[in-house]
């Protein structure tokens, strides 16, 4: 807790600290990396601009973009935050494939120039930055987690339920799944399609043992769940390896099908009216 004997162990003279790591090894590989980076705004599309960057051991694409910003072009726009694949800000299309710039190692890309472009499914703002605000509108439209009234004592939940939901909660909202999905990318239907990210969101709410709402109708109608034809492109690009199609979308589709196409339920609706919304809320857990 105290700092007695601090310097003696380090063999220091007790007057002046030295740099933590000595002179840092810049890790230069001697290679030169060539990047073709998209530049422009909706009004002023310049196309790809070529930059050359010194190679560094273990370098990721975002390192190269930072080098360009610091030394070659201070006006190059790119989003980023954590640089550790935990925030989902630096999404782009690298050699045509949607990915996180902070997680894409240059030494794992084929030799030759690297193309870096903004996500195609969203409107361009500038350079590598796109307008992803539609995603925030969708999130607002999905009814939030809602639990049954209870007495406020600590909940008891099984770890197995947490494990199942945890996969969905790993989502870092990079929107690469939204970008790669052909419903958005080719058909431009994001205005009537929640997209993979928000099917994952709905699934995480629907499968929460304490949630009492039913969002399947809304997901089918407003969310355009049926547009998805399970090509699994979203799963392939997910940097968190969430099994979006298998574990979120297909179970949601099954719930919709159960409600609307189950012949027994269909007959029931004909005879007794629509009671689909009286889903049984889970019984509040007894206190410890």
């Amino acid at each position, binding site marked *: *807790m*105290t*700092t*007695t*004997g*601090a*310097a003696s*162990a*380090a*063999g*220091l003279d*007790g007057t*002046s*600290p030295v*740099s*933590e*790591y000595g002179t*840092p*090894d810049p*890790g230069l590989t001697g290679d030169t990396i060539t990047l073709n980076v998209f530049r422009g*705004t909706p009004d002023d599309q310049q196309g790809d601009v070529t930059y050359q960057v010194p190679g*560094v051991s*273990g*370098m990721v694409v*975002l390192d190269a973009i930072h080098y360009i910003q*610091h030394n070659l072009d*201070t*006006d190059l*726009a*790119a989003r*980023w*935050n*954590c*640089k*550790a*694949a*935990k*925030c989902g*800000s630096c999404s782009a299309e690298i050699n045509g494939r949607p990915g996180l710039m902070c997680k894409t*190692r240059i030494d794992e890309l084929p030799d030759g120039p690297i193309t870096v472009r903004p996500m195609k499914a969203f409107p361009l*703002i*500038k350079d590598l930055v796109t307008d992803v605000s539609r995603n*925030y509108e969708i999130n*607002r439209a999905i009814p*939030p*987690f809602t639990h049954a009234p209870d007495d406020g004592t*600590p*909940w*008891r939940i099984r*770890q197995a339920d*947490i494990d199942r*939901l*945890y996969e969905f*909660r*790993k989502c*870092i*909202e990079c929107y690469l799944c939204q970008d790669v999905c052909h419903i958005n990318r080719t058909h431009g239907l994001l205005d009537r399609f929640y997209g993979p990210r928000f099917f994952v969101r709905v699934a995480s*709410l629907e499968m*929460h043992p304490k949630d009492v709402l039913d969002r399947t109708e809304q997901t089918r109608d407003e969310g355009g769940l049926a547009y998805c034809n399970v090509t699994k492109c979203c799963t392939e690009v997910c940097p968190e390896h969430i099994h979006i199609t298998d574990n979120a979308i297909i179970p949601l589709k099954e719930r919709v099908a159960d409600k609307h196409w189950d012949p027994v339920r269909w007959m029931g609706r004909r005879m007794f009216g629509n009671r689909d919304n009286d889903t049984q809320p889970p019984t509040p857990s007894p206190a*410890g």
Partner: protein
Amino acid sequence: MSAESYITHECDVLVIGAGGSGMRAAIAAAEAGCSTIVITKSLLGKAHTVMAEGGIAAGLGNLDDADGWEVHFADTMLGGQLVNNWRMVELYAHEVIDRVYELERWGGLFDRTDDGLIMQRPFGAHSYRRLAHVGDRTGLELIRTCQDKLVHTAGAECLMEYTLTRLLKNGDRVVGAMGYNRNDGKFVVIKAGATILASGGWGRMYRYTSNSWEGTGDGAAMAYDAGADLLDMEFVQFHPTGMIWPPGARGILVTEAVRGDGGMLFNSEHRRFMLDYDPVKKDLSSRDVVARSIYKEVQAGRGSPHGGAFLDITHRGADYILRKLPSMYEQFHALASVDITKEPMEVGPTIHYTMGGIRVDPETSATTVPGLYAAGESAGGLHGANRLGGNSLGDILVFGRRAGVAAAEFARTEGQQRDVDERDVEAEQTALLDPLDSSHGWTDRENPYHLHEALQAAMQDDAGIGRSDASLQRALSAILELRGRSKRMRVVGRRVLNPGWHTCRDVTFMLTVSEAIVRSALHRQESRGSQWRFDFLEQDARQGQVNYVTRRDGDSMTVEAVPLSQMPANLVQLLPRSRFYDPAKLPKGYLRPEEMPPATAKEAPG
């Protein structure tokens, strides 16, 4: 020069920052019936809170019956070397328990015990298993839960990708802030009844940092400019375990949960050196101690190939590691080509957290300027000289909420008059546009990124983990020289999403905050917590009785020693409840050992 037109918003409560504390504050203010605007420099949900991995420290006592707020209080005070604001710690240790349960009722997930209760993991310098967590992504869970709560809370609105650069005052009172929309470069003025700074900490002025680009100290610098007091600025936390290789990954955090879950530190001679430095807490000693220990091993020539230590958790087996530390596995696999289930990680200290910050009232989070509040990492006082892991996620929830409630009350009762002075708006516009003005004809113009790199070198080498009067004086000279050069920063391009232009103001803010760190560190002529002075290796009882407060006096920065308030006897009596309480090794300060309770009191029922 006449003022350029700008967009005006008005609200009861303005919250600057949308990490955990900002969102929790906004939810509280909106639920109190106030129109609330939350500003974020990034997209919503990207704030630095997502990086917090280990968990939320709360004395739930789900695994260890002996735990409770009292022991949490004692651990936090002792970890902070008793220069924390004891009242903040008391409120915190009490209320964080409710905040954890509240988060769960908002849909947040936590790992469970066999009985289905919230699981708690051990962490450095916590007496008991205390951190509520979900895998190693608790920060992401917290931010997503608060985000979903916020967007569905009536009365709260979020403006994304705006930078605010100046607090606007009407007389003595803060009545809002101004800045620009990053995406189109247009100016914005937000008039507010009360303003909350929830803008996080500042680590970007160091070379090796776990902070994102946002950690430039905007909130502290703006508060300082507006005349608010800053507290304990010398206390900057080095997290002992950051990645150190490859170069691009240097500084990225390796969660303390690795050690919480059994990871051990080794030097190049395969010796568990923490057994030598802290035989009691070992690898889970407090962060300041572990960081210094790694530093000493490296200086003694026993470092790893890239100048750090080895962190090994392979003995826990692949199944356990993949379940409890999935994002660490992924991080090392993707960035360093290291399989942590089979090989040790190479780690070294990285700037992680700033204990110091804006001086606030413990009950209301009010700063020393009327109408201005601060919460979370941007505020100071809770953590003293060293923060324990798990206490930041709790901090942001407890004091975010308190700030929101108090600011809402102020906005309703004293915050109706919200007129801003147009001359202030015009002056700020002129200052912001200066780097884009091509009419200067400078020949010696400065690249803001290069000034930033120079500042990082100065702070890392001379105001880093170890400091001395000579090194700090060198850092101060460098800062003052860079301050002069920063007036000639010049960038190309227009105002639409121009990162070079944005960096100009970041550099200005970082210079202010760096100067405060260095000046405070010069004043604290002792080693305490994160402050390690090579020229004053011992703790000094006299300086254990004060906090150093930095404030603006005209154009110069002053530092004043302010006495700590006396901890009430009932709280002093709680200190022995910490398992790490040792009367012989108490932090030196106003509590003399003879006034302290005997160590045996810890066994007494509470």
